[in-house]
């Protein structure tokens, strides 16, 4: 008996000591995951269910997608998502191409004054968007661009540059200089070197930076709200902000469905690329 006692008690104690930890973890997961589950189940409920059943009740019909149809057609979600894609994709492309090239020029190439230029880019990270909003509005207004998505594309490209340049410069710094010096001795042309040596070496980093910028641009509200002067130019964030107004306060289902659509997109990306997203977003934390 003493043998079993000494045999079992440390394991029991270890188990007992882990119980509070599991409670904390369980609580954490409920707090983090349940609101989302509540949102998704809510998007499948009818208006009667919202009014008559308790809020935690599960939907009576799990295949009731009428709220999504309603949000998509009457709520103009299709237009908003199209606008978001039309603004985000070109802006992302320009930010990455310009930012990677600038990072290479500022970190790999040797010239006077690259320190101050890098610092000038860095200063852009801390400038609040409000500081450039009003002059930009004047410029776009005078240039006659206010009726298009161009103000969004241009502004997103510029605002994304400081962080892209900063992160790319950091990644290029981690490539051993000998790689580039050896290439120059082999007589490689600088553009060839950028394309065949520099670019492949930081390809993964570029993908990470692009992911980070995608989340920043896609989730932006301030710029989109300022420069979308017409209803049919709204991005998904601006559209969603005015969504309850379109349906009136009482239409629960379509509102839940619209929020769910907006959430599912970024969530799907995170599902497949979570480690990379976590690494990228924490690396970009200077942005605050």
């Amino acid at each position: 008996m003493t043998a079993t006692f000494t045999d079992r008690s440390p394991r029991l104690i270890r188990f007992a000591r882990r119980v509070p930890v599991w409670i904390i973890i369980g609580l954490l997961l409920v707090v983090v995951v349940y609101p989302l589950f509540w949102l998704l189940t809510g998007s499948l409920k009818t208006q009667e269910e919202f009014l008559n059943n308790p809020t935690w009740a599960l939907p009576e019909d799990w295949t009731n997608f009428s709220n999504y149809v309603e949000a998509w057609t009457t709520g103009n979600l299709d237009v908003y998502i199209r606008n978001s894609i039309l603004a985000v994709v070109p802006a992302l492309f320009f930010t990455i191409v310009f930012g990677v090239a600038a990072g290479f020029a500022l970190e790999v190439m040797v010239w006077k004054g690259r320190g101050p230029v890098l610092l000038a880019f860095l200063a852009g990270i801390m400038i609040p968007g409000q500081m450039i909003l009003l002059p930009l509005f004047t410029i776009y207004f005078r240039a006659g661009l206010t009726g298009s998505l161009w103000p969004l594309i241009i502004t997103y490209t510029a605002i994304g540059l400081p962080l892209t340049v900063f992160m790319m410069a950091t990644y290029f710094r981690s490539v051993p200089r000998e790689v580039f010096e050896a290439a120059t001795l082999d007589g490689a042309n600088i553009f060839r070197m950028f394309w065949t040596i520099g670019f492949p070496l930081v390809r993964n980093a570029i993908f990470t930076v692009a992911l980070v910028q995608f989340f920043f641009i896609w989730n932006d509200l301030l710029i989109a709200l300022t420069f979308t002067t017409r209803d049919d130019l709204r991005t998904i964030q601006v559209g969603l902000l005015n969504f309850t107004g379109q349906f009136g306060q009482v239409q629960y289902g379509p509102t839940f469905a619209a929020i769910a659509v907006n959430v599912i997109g970024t969530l799907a990306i995170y599902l497949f690329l979570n480690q990379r997203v976590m690494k990228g977003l924490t690396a970009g934390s200077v942005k605050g």
Partner: protein
Amino acid sequence: MNRVLGDPRAILVLLGPALLVYTLVMLVPIFWSLGYTVFEGNPITGFEFVGLDNFVALANDPKIADALVFTLKYAVVLTIAQVGFGYLLALIYVFWLRKASSLVRTLAFFPVVLPTVAVALLFQELFKIAPVNGLVNDLLNLAGIPSVDWFASPDTAFLVLILMDLWRSMGFYAVLLYAGLVDIPDDLFESARLDGASGWRLVRHIVIPLSLPVLLSSIIFSVNGTLKVFDSVLALTGGGPGNTTTPLTLYMYQTSFTYGEYGYGSSIALLLTIICLLVTIFIFRSSRRDLTKG
């Protein structure tokens, strides 16, 4: 070698586009906006030179004082909450979950990637009172507590705002701080344990001092981000009730676009930028100190 790596034509081609866009769309508007501070008006009605009137108004506007106090209160409270909870989570990851923490870390991080507007609308529904209760009020009723109209009073609206942003950012700071904590060498803990330190004493005398640099930069990142809060406030409370949850960013937006006062709006933006600048100086100071330490 330097002839290739220092080729001015190549530098121009590679750096030119970025520098041009950055200069035209960010640097020029910054100075342009500085110029606006001595004018009043907007592009549609035209501008009128008013000298330093905007700054005088800035100093005497009680709404500015309210917005400034709210901005600072929000930044301080949320920074303490999100870095505090993040640190707690990071400690759980490192000391209790160890290798098994990957899944929990990934799950706790996901609210970070969700659009702020979507999260704000979700929290509006969660804390709803009319026409039917949201989840929170239903749970309160279940516990025998009457429903609360969360967005009707400044204090409860502030509480919901902090809870929402804490929900969004906790996992982010946990991962950021976790990265700093796993870098602490294991032998340090072993020797401290051999010396008889455990539990809270181990945390206080070994863990906190050794993770101080990453803790400090988290605090600075957090302050820098929270000072610029806009999306979550606008989408959750719209600055209300009244203007009790209106930060400087939102007040600047309202004066500029609701009232068309570009000059006054620019002055508020300048005030905000100066505050952010002061914080950034701290960032560079502390990060430089870290470099000399490590």
